């Protein structure tokens, strides 16, 4: 299993300042997890320049009629697993 330095969990719409602060904090070896209203970033052009792996909670995406890519969608068990694996978790 690849090393995961920091898991960044963000739950806000991409038009909020906190979401942008989160993107600015991403580094190689990190991962980004979109939850709640942050899954809206899956549509439109909100993740330009993001080079780390991006995950999204399928329950949140489905409720908002969005479909994460095949590698992107995870369930709550996946969220737990990522959180346990990561050396550090930042809840934005």
């Amino acid at each position, binding site marked *: *299993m690849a090393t995961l330095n920091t898991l960044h969990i963000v739950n*806000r719409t991409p038009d*909020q300042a906190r979401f942008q602060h989160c993107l600015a904090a991403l580094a190689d070896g990190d991962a980004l997890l979109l939850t*709640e209203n942050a899954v809206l970033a899956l549509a439109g052009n909100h993740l330009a320049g993001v080079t780390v792996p991006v995950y999204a909670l399928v329950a949140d995406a489905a409720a908002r009629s969005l479909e994460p890519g095949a590698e992107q969608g995870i369930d709550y068990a996946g*969220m*737990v*697993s990522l959180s346990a694996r990561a050396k550090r978790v930042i*809840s*934005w």
Partner: protein
Amino acid sequence: MTSSIPPQAETPAIAPTAFTLVITGAPYSSQAPQTALSFARATVAAGHRIHRVFLYGDGVHLASALAAPPSDEPDWPAEWADFLKANGIQGIACIASALRRGVVDSAEQARYALPGHNLRAPFELAGLGEWVDSRLGDGKVLYFHGGR
């Protein structure tokens, strides 16, 4: 306080982690309590452990005993209380946040001569020292904030 791991829990692929969940978003204003509950259930199911749930800021409203949501909406305070009891997990509401926002137990009712109390069991009032304790422990502290 330790959580009891149900016998059917799978052994996690990596070493078990003790999570403290800090909830700062209120039910019926934010999705924080429901995301946190789904995460907590998945944590226990995977054989990890919830060390403590700490309500801070607007999150203290999750400990209200007086919420009466419509019958076709989930009762998040009741669901959380049931989960904590069933798994023997400590639930703390930050006392400073709670007093400002009108969430009090019978001791605080007496201290401030208030006309009632509304803290739902098994939640207890305590200070930020509980959060510091989690922060200094071996586990991970995750936050579930409101959406704005």
